[in-house]
């Protein structure tokens, strides 16, 4: 799979660029603190809301802190939340989805109806409720967002599993007397991996949007710790004084999500079994 993805990446510039952007963002998330040219938390009341200068390449925020440094460390909490949330949603959602498609009728009824009901809430509302009453931090955000995306994953795993179970090799497995464990791990999982991988990329993007949305509202990552969404939310109050303050984090955030979406789209095409057999 990986070899195939890389081979196709070479022939598609947009995909290649997106992968590069993603790699850069991940690098930033890991090494941002070392890359930061100045202390991201150092307040300087004499240099508030400044534009670009030799000292502050991207200017300063409302407390005179260096924007570039804050941007560099601002992706780490977002990425941690997004990856943690996707891991939680991916593991539990996939298992529930498979059980919903392959389990006994009462179990699948229970699971899929619960999934339907969970899906009838917009995720941001539940997240709002949860972080509004709980303390908010990287861990709780990851858990809350992860739980909220379990039903989405379950839906995808469910329909993919249903498609697999309709194939004759599932009957062949049963006719040979295969155990449930064998059926799930050798017949179902490898065959639904492609849609799950695609769903994982989409969930990372959605989790980033959700986290940054909450932070934008002031309910996510708690200041003075920065996150891009939170910086955009704060910068909105200084649109007239320092328009570039809002532009930089917006640009970075949009670029990151765009890169993930392009990768997800391409992966969907590459992994689509209908397109694989030529």
């Amino acid at each position, binding site marked *: 799979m990986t070899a195939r993805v890389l081979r196709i990446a070479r022939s598609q510039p*947009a995909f290649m660029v997106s992968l590069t952007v993603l790699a850069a963002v991940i690098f930033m998330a890991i090494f941002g603190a070392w890359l930061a040219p100045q202390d991201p938390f150092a307040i300087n009341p004499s240099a508030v809301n400044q534009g670009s200068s030799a000292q502050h390449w991207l200017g300063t925020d409302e407390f005179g802190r260096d924007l570039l440094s804050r941007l560099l460390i601002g992706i780490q909490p977002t990425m941690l939340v997004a990856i943690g949330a996707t891991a939680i949603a991916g593991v539990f959602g996939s298992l529930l989805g498979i059980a919903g498609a392959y389990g006994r009728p009462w179990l699948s009824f229970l699971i899929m109806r619960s999934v*339907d*009901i969970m899906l*009838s*809430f*917009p*995720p*941001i*509302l539940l997240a*709002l*409720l949860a972080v*509004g*009453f*709980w303390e908010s931090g990287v861990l709780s955000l990851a858990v809350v967002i992860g739980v909220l995306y379990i039903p989405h994953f379950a839906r995808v795993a469910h329909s993919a599993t249903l498609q697999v179970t309709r194939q004759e090799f599932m009957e062949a497995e049963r006719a040979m007397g295969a155990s449930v464990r064998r059926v799930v791990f050798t017949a179902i999982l490898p065959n639904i991996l492609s849609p799950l991988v695609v769903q994982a990329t989409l969930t990372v*993007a959605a989790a980033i*949007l959700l986290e*940054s*949305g909450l932070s*934008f*509202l002031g*309910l996510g990552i708690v200041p003075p710790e920065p996150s891009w*969404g939170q910086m*955009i*939310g704060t*910068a*909105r109050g200084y*649109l*007239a004084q320092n*328009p570039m303050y*809002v532009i930089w984090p*917006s640009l970075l*955030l*949009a670029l990151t*999500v*765009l890169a*993930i*979406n*392009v990768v997800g*789209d391409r992966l969907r095409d590459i992994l689509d079994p209908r397109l694989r057999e030529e």
Partner: protein
Amino acid sequence: MNPSIAGALLLVCRKLLTAFVQLLVVATLIFSVMYIMPGDPVLLLLGAESNPSPEAVASMRSQLGLDQPVLTQYFTWLWNALHLDFGNSLTNGYPVSSYVLANLPRTLELAFAAIIVATLIGVPLGIAAALKRGSMRDTVLTSIATVGISVPVYILGTLMVLFFSIKLGWLPASGYTDISRNVVEHFRKLALPALALGFGLAASIARMTRSSMLEILGRDFVRALRAKGMPERRIIWQHVLRNAAIPIVTIIGLQLGNLMGGTVLVEAMFNWPGLSTLLVGAVSARNYPLVQGAMLAIAALFIVINLAVELFYSLLDPRIRRKRS
């Protein structure tokens, strides 16, 4: 009775029942969330730091009905909610329902305005891209759509404020004016939030319109129509579009449901006094009855919209309308 009418009736009944059950479960969840949340709501309300007197705690407890058994509380709450009585706001004692009823139409108005913007932009672009698959036009349109779905609504909104309000001064940056007071001002203030919400949605509607069009264009019957010598234009308008309309309408309807989520951020950033603003305010103020009322209203709206979409969808498609066993 005509079996097809009977089938349609049965379908409607079953969908209504499902929606009702869904609403009931949602209500139960909303009720129980208050108990799952860590900490004593009463202490949270009074502020644990201020060390409230036991009398104050007890009176607050009975005011909220928290001194009764949980089941009694639950059924009382449910019964009242059925009568649109969600209790009174903790901050000023006004009934929650009056807030909900006042804010609900504003959220709906914003959502509908956005969906109209999104449909008017998204559907034609999606069709245009699908009809020239693989062309330059298709590539450009799909790229724009991908960018569109990637830019978060609050970034788009902020940039629009920066441009249209601060730089050009054409439109007010935020706020709300009642339509009865000033019609022009009302719509001027609606414009930016509706556009911000609508653009992102237009992108996803365009993408999905394109893929449903391509799916229909690849079907055997389109080839059969060409073999009959039907002009391409007529194949598209008469057959492909009408077949594609079914999934497209569904997509738009489902997006309308998802918009309830999108309105949260947009209402907050444009100070649009809708349900989400109400909810965000209530969450920050720990105003439990108001939170419950607003949540239930939003969820109910979502469920009702989805129900309407599904019913409309089944009436549109003869395969579902006529045969359902």
